[in-house]
């Protein structure tokens, strides 16, 4: 009643009070206890909530209110397995309850207990013989077969059992619903009994398959393909194309089957029907005629269809691959593409369509082909020496298509710098002119001429890669200009994000990204653009935030999908169940998820004050680059996660007791901790080696291809070597700890040497951070994002150095106080201080000096960045672009300022920690 309302309204405290009042009167009111537990759970008192819930659960309640409330509570506790226990008990006490049995089934479904689901489904069916219950049980068998490690077991046991269960229902004529037939088909398909599956679909049961469009036809087609029954494939594809001559998938099947039949020298039977599905085409002549007929039929269609024309090009391609073309007189591909352009050139997809077929053009014809297309576009020049411009949107669209094709065919590629710049100027002129047609466009719409701007930017990016520094600034300028006219253009935004990141400026990226309004699944599919760069450019706060968004999405995935797997059972969408589970697994094993998890934890360690002792588009990416990038990302993830585990293993080593000899410690198990650290260190070395080998290939991803990882910088700036040496130092210090100070001259010397070389290496790393972040060279701006990335690596490495020093401190401090006690007792002044103390003190002093120097350096950078006068550069730019150039440069400057500030703040915190370390 009342307290439930409080819970629903989020007033948890009142709910608890109300429940307490009730409980005073009725001590054993179970439901009130559970509602109180929910209130406790929601106010963060998980342990109390759990204890209270278990009190009720132990009584094995059978009243609806308690059961439902406990289910809600367990779900909020993320303990779905407890719900199964609850209903197992309830079902024992009330064995004939349909409701409790079905709750039990769903509880099992939520945790994926397939075998128990199968039994629960049958138990339900025995109580109430409703078909869905029976088929839930059958589906659970399929799930057992999918999850079985042993494929043999799945094919010889689970699936045949499922098949027999369905057959029994078929024999008894008890099949009622479409879902049941779908399930039967699913089983047969998985058993590779394609013939039987086909019979089901084509038979009486198949008549139930009506929900989806062409459900029966699609299933038959799939089975014909599996059975290599090309005559049927062909006849069915032909029939479906007669119905809809624009459906691409059936052209592909039609061509595949025609050529299969030709290769098999298949001939139609003389008297009977060609095939189960009717007439079959089995010669090139028939195929050619069929396509020509589709084209002739197209003219009678109310809407122009692209399918028949493109199918002709596809047929030519296939004939060419077989070495025969001319005799069938399909025509010249160049001419056909020209005709296609005439018909569809004003559609934005014309380029995408023709792109698939440009390999049919001989390279020697490229220029002629482009000119041929240009010649038919109605363009008008205001004066003889001016650019001829389109008079309407259609002409503009046609021209855009030609420009895109020109780039695809590499026409601009061979141009020199001057020519390319001329093309850029022309494209921008066309872009600005084209804005005229979009004056009435809403903010949510794209401008018709946006693609001109995009193409100009791509050409400039090419120039930038060839070493033309000013080009990248013009890219940003043009994109900002484009965005101001077309504020919803995602292509502009994504390109800006990529380029700003390449230049080391993260600040403008946050705003651009948020204007994309990316959410949910997009945290995975585009979120990596943020997380790759935010922390590596010193924008720690933004990095934390974007990691959090991504993690929240990934964590909710598990809970969310379970709910809909259950719904799929309820609605009989059986084929969706394995699909949902595969989807959940795909998200859970997302590389981006693993990376964000690792980086988030490293970031937490870095940003926190670690107090020791207290606690323990655009361009197509080739398949090759995709694979290489995945490999690189995986290698880098391994290095980072090993680093994380090593760093978080440090507190477990903390010196607590004074060991007398090493054997004793080996017995009490502390040594296993150092063994773990040493094993991890070995793995890290191996991972670093593989990483180095990978980088030897010197892969250059396309500028808009996958962003490279930070691995190359990690190796080349020396942080990798520093970090591994630091972990080796941990191992040495541990040895000193277990060995004691006596007879440890050799260890002490080793530690002393490590300290010295570490200071040298860290100094080298600092040297790699020196230099101006932004400089003006030959009138252009040049950014040095690698210096920024090196600085970020420096901060991380010096942080690890400090954590290791803290460990060292915790080991040395007790030694020192012991020695001092001894000194007092013996009243001798001759007790010599072991050298390791001096070494450590020197080391810490050096770290302090180095850190102070870096902080000073950063202060210097801040001053330079503030003083940098960017306006003076403007003389290079045209007046029109001036405004945007200023914006762009200002954004980059401000972003660098922001980076340097955050990095400086973090280092100052580190400096405070160092000061505490002096023994």
């Amino acid at each position, binding site marked *: 009643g009342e307290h439930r309302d409080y819970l629903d309204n989020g007033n948890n405290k009142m709910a608890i009070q109300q429940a307490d009042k009730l409980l005073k009167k009725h001590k054993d009111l179970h439901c009130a206890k559970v509602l109180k537990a929910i209130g406790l759970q929601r106010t963060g008192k998980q342990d109390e909530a759990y204890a209270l819930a278990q009190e009720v659960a132990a009584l094995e309640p059978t009243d609806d209110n308690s059961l439902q409330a406990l289910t809600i509570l367990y779900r909020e506790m993320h303990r779905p397995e407890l719900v199964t226990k609850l209903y197992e008990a309830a079902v024992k006490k009330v064995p004939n309850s349909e409701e409790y049995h079905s709750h039990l089934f769903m509880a099992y479904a939520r945790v994926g207990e397939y075998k128990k689901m199968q039994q629960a489904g049958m138990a339900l069916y025995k109580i109430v013989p409703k078909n869905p219950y029976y088929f839930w049980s059958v589906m659970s068998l399929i799930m057992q077969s999918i999850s079985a490690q042993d494929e043999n077991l799945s094919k010889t046991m689970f699936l045949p059992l499922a098949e027999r269960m369905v057959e029994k229902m078929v024999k008894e004529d008890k099949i009622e619903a479409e879902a049941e037939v779908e399930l039967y088909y699913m089983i047969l398909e998985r058993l590779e009994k394609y013939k039987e599956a086909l019979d089901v679909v084509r038979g009486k049961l198949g008549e139930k398959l009506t929900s989806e469009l062409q459900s029966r036809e699609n299933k038959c087609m799939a089975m014909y393909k599996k059975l290599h029954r090309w005559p049927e494939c062909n006849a069915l594809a032909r029939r479906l194309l007669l119905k809809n001559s624009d459906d691409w998938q059936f052209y592909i099947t039609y061509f595949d089957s025609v050529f299969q039949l030709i290769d098999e020298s298949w001939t139609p039977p003389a008297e009977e029907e060609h095939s189960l599905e009717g007439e079959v085409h089995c010669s090139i002549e028939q195929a050619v005629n069929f396509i020509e007929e589709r084209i002739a039929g197209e003219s009678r269609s109310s809407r122009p269809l692209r399918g028949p024309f493109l199918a002709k090009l596809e047929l030519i391609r296939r004939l060419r691959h077989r070495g025969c073309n001319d005799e069938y007189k399909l025509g010249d591909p160049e001419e056909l593409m020209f005709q296609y352009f005439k018909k569809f050139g004003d559609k*934005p997809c014309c380029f995408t369509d023709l792109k698939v077929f440009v390999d049919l053009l001989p390279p020697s014809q490229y220029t002629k082909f482009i000119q041929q297309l240009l010649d038919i576009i109605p363009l008008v020049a205001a004066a003889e020496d001016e650019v001829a411009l389109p008079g309407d949107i259609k002409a503009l669209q046609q021209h855009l298509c030609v420009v895109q094709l020109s780039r695809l065919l590499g026409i601009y590629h061979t141009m020199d710098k001057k020519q390319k710049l001329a093309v850029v100027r022309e494209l921008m002129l066309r872009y600005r002119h084209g804005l005229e047609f979009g004056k009435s466009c809403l903010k949510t719409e794209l401008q018709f001429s946006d693609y001109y701007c995009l193409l100009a930017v791509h050409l400039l990016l090419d120039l930038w890669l060839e070493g033309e520094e000013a080009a990248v600034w013009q890219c940003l300028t043009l994109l900002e200009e484009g965005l101001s006219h077309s504020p919803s253009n*995602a292509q502009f935004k994504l390109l800006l994000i990529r380029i700003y990141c390449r230049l080391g400026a993260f600040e403008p990226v946050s705003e651009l990204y948020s204007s994309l309004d990316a959410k949910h699944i997009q945290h995975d599919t585009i979120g990596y653009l943020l997380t790759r760069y935010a922390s590596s450019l010193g924008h720690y706060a933004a990095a934390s935030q974007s990691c959090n968004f991504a993690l929240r999405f990934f964590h909710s995935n598990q809970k969310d999908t379970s709910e809909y797997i259950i719904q799929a059972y309820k609605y009989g969408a059986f084929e969706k169940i394995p699909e949902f589970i595969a989807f959940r697994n795909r998200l859970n094993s997302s590389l981006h998820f693993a990376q964000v998890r690792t980086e988030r934890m490293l970031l937490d360690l870095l940003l926190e004050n670690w107090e020791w002792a207290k606690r323990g588009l655009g361009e197509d990416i080739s398949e090759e680059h995709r694979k290489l990038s995945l490999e690189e990302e995986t290698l880098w993830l391994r290095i980072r996660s090993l680093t994380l585990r090593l760093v978080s293993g440090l507190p477990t080593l903390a010196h607590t007791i004074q060991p007398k000899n090493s054997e004793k410690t080996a017995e009490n198990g502390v040594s296993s901790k150092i063994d773990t650290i040493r094993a991890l260190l070995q793995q890290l070395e191996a991972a670093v080696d593989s990483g180095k080998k990978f980088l030897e290939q010197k892969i250059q991803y396309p500028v808009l291809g996958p962003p490279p990882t930070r691995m190359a910088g990690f190796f080349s700036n020396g942080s990798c070597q520093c970090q591994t040496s630091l972990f080796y130092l941990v191992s040495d210090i541990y040895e000193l700890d277990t060995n004691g100070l006596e007879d440890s001259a050799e260890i002490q010397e080793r530690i002393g040497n490590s300290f010295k070389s570490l200071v040298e290496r860290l100094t080298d790393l600092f040297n790699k951070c020196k230099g101006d972040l932004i400089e003006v060279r030959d009138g252009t701006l040049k950014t040095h994002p690698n210096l920024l990335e090196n600085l970020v690596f420096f901060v991380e490495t010096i942080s690890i150095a400090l954590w290791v020093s803290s460990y060292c401190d915790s080991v040395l401090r007790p030694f020192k106080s012991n020695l001092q006690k001894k000194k007092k007792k013996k009243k001798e002044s001759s007790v010599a201080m072991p050298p390791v103390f001096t070494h450590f003190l020197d080391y810490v002093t050096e770290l302090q000096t180095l850190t102070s120097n870096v902080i000073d350096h950063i202060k210097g950078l801040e001053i330079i960045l503030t003083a940098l006068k960017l306006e003076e550069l403007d003389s290079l730019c045209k007046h029109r672009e001036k405004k945007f150039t200023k914006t762009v440069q200002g954004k980059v400057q401000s972003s660098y300022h922001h980076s340097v500030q955050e990095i400086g703040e973090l280092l100052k915190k580190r400096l405070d920690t160092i000061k505490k370390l002096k023994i």
Partner: protein
Amino acid sequence: MTTLRAFTCDDLFRFNNINLDPLTETYGIPFYLQYLAHWPEYFIVAEAPGGELMGYIMGKAEGSVAREEWHGHVTALSVAPEFRRLGLAAKLMELLEEISEKKGGFFVDLFVRVSNQVAVNMYKQLGYSVYRTVLEYYSASSGEPDEDAYGKFVFSLKLNGTILMLRIPGLVCKTIIIFLAYETGSDSCRLMGFMYPPLDNFSYLRLYQL
């Protein structure tokens, strides 16, 4: 030239070119899974020969099964910029209407932002008429239509909201003339619209009478 097929979970990884459009909402995973579990046949995607996703339609059956009164509802329809002006949206609508009719749906309705004039005009061309305007349908903080909003928006109508459009198969567009006018009161607004011819004889439509 299009391949039309059922939408699958994996398409969620690939639909950015369609969804990075300011008028296309990217919903939470549960929302898509709910549609896939409950009304998979109303969720269709169009694919280009190069494998690019061109557009999709996502819909459902709404109403009461018990009273045997239900209709088709279009939840989302979107086409990527480079595949517009091909009639793809119309084709996808046609498919959904076909499915809805096959399932015994009485009519098909949808919500569309008043500001999305391109879409409003397209639906009008497809025979849809404005039935009523609704407030803040899209403004739920989660970005997902709030089921409780059903009761709410009836009493809080405002111009510049969203319009409900519908098409009844068999009825020619011209025969449904809807007058929309508003009388703004202190805490409630009243829709003064009515339909011609009166739709009282369609008992089902009473569900929607204000």
